[in-house]
């Protein structure tokens, strides 16, 4: 009964779970795309009044394109900063400061210690002193990079654990490569999936974060969506549904990319 890969009870659990997670999403989509009040909803009009109009109207809204572009730029810059800082740090820690590995990991968990509302309160305190910095469009980048730390570092940490890191590095160096060459030509290809997974998670965070963008008064995509919901709720939720669907797709793609590697190491 067990270990044949098709346990009935597991299917049951997964089905119920799937339903629990899909249901609110579906009813939210229904609200966005179908113009029928729930009180009027019945079998007869279940398929009436569905339209994509609200979503199209949202796409045409004044600040949509601008905020989307802004959020995408933020995603790119945050990913770059995040990777640029964490990859060398992780490699460094694994090579030279092995004892400190767990301590460093604790520091990457700080974003959980100082949650959004705490961080926002802190920013409010500092605002008068850092006005120039806040004025920049990209002032969100370092904050988002910090938020992505737990995920990015963890992914890299696990990946580096499974590599014979010292051997690789000493082999590469003894063959005459510089540190840069070693990093880019030898190490990165081996931790490719971890880096990509970190980037995807960072993108998800950037596209979903609202509290900090709000306090810094930046019109990111999530901030725009909140604003738009105040004008046209159904349009706003249409956008949200689409964003969620897209992000899930992004993760599925990520899953496909990492699957082959995982299949090999998985015990069956």
């Amino acid at each position, binding site marked *: 009964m067990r270990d044949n890969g098709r346990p009935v009870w597991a299917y049951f659990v997964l089905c119920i779970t799937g339903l629990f997670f899909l249901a609110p999403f579906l009813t939210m989509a229904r609200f966005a795309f179908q*113009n029928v*009040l*729930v009180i009027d909803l019945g079998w007869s009009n279940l398929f009436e009044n569905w339209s994509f109009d609200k979503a199209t109207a949202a796409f045409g809204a004044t600040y949509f394109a601008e905020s989307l572009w802004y959020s995408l730029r933020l995603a790119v810059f945050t990913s770059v900063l995040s990777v640029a800082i964490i990859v060398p740090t992780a490699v460094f820690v694994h090579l030279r400061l092995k004892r400190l590995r767990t301590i460093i990991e604790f520091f990457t968990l700080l974003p959980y210690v100082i949650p959004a509302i705490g961080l926002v309160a802190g920013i409010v305190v500092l605002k008068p002193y850092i006005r120039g910095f806040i004025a920049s469009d990209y002032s969100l980048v370092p904050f988002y990079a910090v938020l992505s730390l737990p995920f990015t570092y963890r992914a890299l940490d696990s990946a580096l654990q499974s590599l014979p890191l010292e051997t690789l590095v000493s082999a590469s160096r003894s063959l005459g490569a510089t540190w840069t060459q070693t990093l880019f030509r030898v190490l990165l290809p081996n931790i490719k999936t971890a880096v990509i997974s970190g980037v995807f998670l960072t993108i998800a965070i950037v596209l979903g974060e609202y509290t900090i963008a709000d306090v810094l008064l930046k019109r990111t995509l999530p901030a725009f969506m909140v604003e738009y919901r*105040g004008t046209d709720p159904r349009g706003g939720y249409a956008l949200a549904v689409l964003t969620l669907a897209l992000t899930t797709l992004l993760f599925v793609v990520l899953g496909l990319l990492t699957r082959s590697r995982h299949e090999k190491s998985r015990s069956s």
Partner: protein
Amino acid sequence: MQLMSKQWKKALAGVTVLGLSLTACGGSESSEESDMSSETTTADAASSSGADLTALYEECKTEGKVNLIALPDEWANYKGILQSFRDKYPGVENPVANPDASSADEMAAVETLAGQPDMPDNVDVSPAIAQEMVDKGLFEPYVVTSDAEIPAGLKDAANNWTAAYYGIMAITTNTKIVSTAPMTFADLKKPEYKGLVALNGDPREAGAAFAAVMAASFANGGSADDILPGIEYFAELKSSGNLGSTDVTKETVLSGETPIAIDWSYNVPGLAGELEAAGITYETHFPSDGIYGGFYGQGVVKNSPHQACSKLWLEHLLSNEGALGYLEGGAVPARIEALTKAGLVTDEVKKNLPPEELLGQVKFLTPTQVAAAKKVLAEKWGPMVADAG
């Protein structure tokens, strides 16, 4: 459009013009026509001190825009008022940032964006925040040309801010979901409304909710100095289960989740179109047992990037067009007396307003009374209402 070109010619003939060529011409730049604007522009012939404003307008044109904040389209018909401003003063933009921002958010924006090109030029804030802004020196005092026609209770003594409109509390019901709409605070206690009554926020935080509790206090023997009966009233509503806990937002209104809302009288007319499109029928009643008048203050922000336009905007709000715009939204303009004398307040225009006999009973709280009420709320609202049960 004819009236526009007449104004242009007048302006050219007047004071020295700087950089006219800079502003892109073309009348109202927004091509979307708003149904509501057409009625307000015809009255500009009646606006007082037109000549003085020309100079201000010229100066404003060189600035090009006025940064506004926290003005939702359906709040007291700001959509129409924004449009009528653009119609009347072509070449000046009036973008609104963060329509759903609270008064405290507005003040925060003024402070955070100080010195930036997108710093708000003008704000629309609750009396409490207005007072705080005065204390912090964030306003640029300015006497509006129509100042004499504004009652003393609706402006700051030192001309830091002026309240262009006020309203009273109303109970709006989604009659698709609730067959008999409640009409007074006493009605709201009926068991048939279990779970259906909603406040627009937490009174410790939101102006509209604060006003609702104060109004309920009036309805239950309280006064401007005593908000406790109001708290007790809501405590009763909460324990009977009538007071729902869902936060009122536009989506909960449109989905019918919060069918009975206690909110400002001027927050409903703006939603009319959308409610109809969603197939919702509704009724608004002004509870005669609890009449609380509340206003929001507008003022020119000190050292903001577009001073002249900010002043022009304030002038517009207090002009006849602005007043008619507010009326359309169900808000009472500050200069209602002057307008009535000028014969501009027809029945058609008054249709969204609360009944006159109720408006006559409106008294505004002084800042001291507001502060005292806040204190009681901070102590008692939590244990008695929000956190109870």
